[in-house]
């Protein structure tokens, strides 16, 4: 598998570290239902068979966290962007 890093260009998967579901949003710790929302955020997964938004860290390259859209049935890379709500100034 190869991932087209927006900074480094297309690279072999062995340069990247996988974290998983990119849907993770760290809940507000100060709400009443924080415990439940943390459990869901940290432990539960959609785990779809099909397009999956996921996080890869280019650990052997530019050290950016990337959000990759990949089909879990075919391993096709469908899309990619720098992860996080706001991208780094120079990324992409």
């Amino acid at each position, binding site marked *: 598998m190869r991932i087209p890093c927006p900074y480094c260009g297309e690279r072999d998967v062995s340069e990247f570290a996988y974290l998983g579901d990119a849907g993770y949003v760290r809940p507000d710790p100060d709400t009443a239902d924080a*415990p439940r929302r943390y459990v869901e955020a*940290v432990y539960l997964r959609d785990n779809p068979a099909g397009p999956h938004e996921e996080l890869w860290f280019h650990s052997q390259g530019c050290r950016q966290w990337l959000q990759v859209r990949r089909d879990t049935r075919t391993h*096709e890379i469908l899309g990619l962007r720098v992860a996080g709500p706001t991208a780094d100034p120079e990324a992409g």
Partner: protein
Amino acid sequence: MSEAAQPKRISRGGMIDRARALSFRFDDRDYTGYAGDTLASALLANGIRRVGRSFKYHRSRGVLTAGPEEPNALVELRTGDRREPNTRATVTELFAGLEARSQNRWPSLALDLGAVSSCFSPLFVAGFYYKTFMWPKSFWEKLYEPAIRRAAGLGRASGQPDPDGYEKSFGFCDVLVIGAGPAGLAAALAAARRGARVVLCEEDFLLGGRLNAERCSIDGSDAVDWVRRVEAELASFADVRILRRTSVFGLYDGTAGSHSASGTRTFGAVERVSDHLQQPPQFQPRQRLWKIVARRAVLAAGAVERTIAFGGNDRPGIMLASAVRSYVNRFAVLPGRRVAVFTSTDDGWKAAFDLSEAGASVEALIDARGEPPASLIEQLRATGARLYAGSRVVEGHGSAGLSGVTIMDSQARRTRLRVDALAVSGGWNPNLALATHTGSKPRWSERIHAFVPDVLPGGLAVAGAARGALTLREALSEGAEAGAAAAEQLGFSGAAGEQWRADEEASEVAPLWFVGESRGKAFVDFQHDVTHEDVALAAREGFRSVEHLKRYTTLGMATDQGRTSALNAHAIMSALTGRSIAELGTPGARPPCTPVAIGAFAGPHRGRHFRPTRRTAGHGWAQEQGATFIEAGDWLRAQWFAQPGESDWQATVDREVKAVRTRVGLCDVSTLGKVDIQGRDAAKFLDRVYSNVFSTLPVGKVRYGLMLREDGFVLDDGTSAHLSPDHYVMSTTTANAQRVLQHLEHARQLLWPDLDVRLASVTEQWAQYAIAGPESRRLLEQALGDALSVSNQAFPYLACAEFRWQGVPARLFRISFSGELAYELAVPAQYGDAAVRAIAAAGASLGVVPYGLESLNVMRIEKGHLTGNELNGTTTAADLGMGRLMSTRKDFIGRVLAQRPGLTDPRRPALVGVRPIDPYSPVRSGAHFLSMGEPPTLENDQGYVTSAAFSPMLNSWIALGLLSRGRERLGERIRIHDPVRSGTDVEVEVVAPVFFDPAGERLVT
């Protein structure tokens, strides 16, 4: 070489170099062949028909094919530590001094399946072992299984370290062409002419594929000349790479998925660099693994001829028709003098023509079809062969080698013919395995009665016989089109105009899978001895899907993957169950499509170079001091520094510890992870990633910090030093350095991108040395001079400073892992060697000693400091007695989930110290705690020892451990249970987890 030496060698022709005779050994006898031979062709030339024994029935077997699909002619190649079992003689290039042995010949003595098979073979039907060997219970493992294990398997591995080297290489190209037969050559040339960057891989040592084995012409001249012309033109392109002896074994993902056209794909290939030599030349590997990234690929791997299942179809001397033509035309070998051909295809007839041309007496041509093409019949007249149309071979005779065949003609009359060779042609199976590696399924073709590629992986085209286009004419045109299309899709357009003319060919195929009137065993898997009866039994017992059939009968699971015969079994099953072959299921192939040496996948990463080794800047100095090194993750660290006369490592460690505690010691701590943290929000960032507060840490101070995972368990611990406003340097444990940095980048880039903070790893930048002991301050004063004042007032406990030491940027931290008055001095790594020598020199008069990991460990246990043994990913801050570091004044990673009942349960094991009542009773890490008098059961398990050591200061064994409700149990006597290492339990007292200088006075004086 005289003809006598090679009785079956044809006196002229062939693509062998008769000027270069090569001697070789087979089963301890000497023979001679020619350069250009394979081991199989050389054996056949020497009149050897029987080359091995079958797996289950130990029947004599000979050469069936002339390619990698060979199921029978497997040998042990080479000797000693280079012995290679199961090597296919049909693709083994002959070299001078080659040594080979037949395999599986004399079964083991214990249970000689070979010997009994003749009379007991009726018992050894598919899956017989599932139905028996169950009684008496103990006999399976004691008797039956060992016997089966000894009898099973084929060749013997060398059992010794592989002496040869392997390499890996990445390759990149626009168009990868797989196979250099007519289609592949045409494709490669078409792509190259358009300016594409081309890689052409050919499994054989000659380019040309079938053109080397057949008598055919292109543009009116001999096809072999065409091959040489194309080869020469390809070689003239700078951007074309031809890889001979290279098998493309797997199709893997690139950016493209299973079906999308755009993007790249990764192909795995193995280049047999030196397998055609007695051993690899200096600096050359045996094999090279290629990882080829291609934007487009053309699969032109040809097709494999399949056999026909009839009684005794495994007799040595029975060969695929295509193989016969290979041996006759390419290798100038005559497989038999009196020969016959059994075919259900037009193609099979060509074997008769070639054999006759080569001087064999063709006794008969048996065509299962009632009315073969008139043109062929006309051509056959010249050979004088008798035609049996609408007839079938029902039995092959001759256990040591074919002596004759019995045929049944259209009127069901049986005739026995005396022949010593039979060419069989049952049709062609396209080599489409690569096209199915990413999950694409082939479809059934009623035209050629075989599976052909259907939906293809994106970017992959298939051309020629691999697509079921069996004529040379189609191969040339399809190849050229595929190569041109691939290049043009990528925007290349150059001189086109490849137009090659080839003769018409009759290529009709009629399905003939199994001869119902067969007498004797009809094999559908030669190597695993699967017969038509086994297929019938599987059907009877309900193993009817292709996968069940395969798993129950082991059909197609041998080294040849059933390429020449498994489809016959599917056909038999479909006849028995009234379902079409397609309905039975299409077995998708998985990599590798040809067996690949495990060494090739490993490449150079073996032995001491299995993984890279990290060495600190002080490594050389430590070696000079007599260090014994130990692996710590990727690093090598000094474990201890033994001195002459020391009885054992314990004596060494005792000396080092005492020296540090009484004078001063020097330890390389460069391996700790170091992260440079800068930004206006650096303090805020640290507050969120550490459980304790850092925003209150003044410049010039260091603080210990605890880091949790979001799930509330401890991830790592370390210190962070406030060097200057908005600038910190964090230290992590050696083991977690990389994971922590990734964790921090995740927090910075994803959780809080709004913070102005930036991270840089400076682990490599700083060589860092701990100087510990009562005399450490004096040592530093001597080493640093007036570069920095280290008086207790100027530089108190937990102080840090950046300064210049002899003009070199340096850092000093007053922190202590040993519990002594201690400092850590850091310099840029290129000065690390000089610095450690300077420190040692400065401390010489003070009796400074270098100390290693082991002494560090003893001292940190004496102080109850933590390492990976305690930070094992399942402990909480509270477990480790650090509940106070869980700030309630701020948010931090792990805060919420750390409050779950399972993590706050008071019964959780808590960190304690233990001391044996008898100070000399060893306590070892990994031992379990039990209350006195309680039997050793899991229910009574009270926790375990995390770290233990003998303390020379307390003159006693001491240990840290996690004990259930530990904090409430100080003073209690419990026992230590360590059955895997000691028969008797040790009684210990539970104490606070700090044994030495509990008040910490030494740190601050």
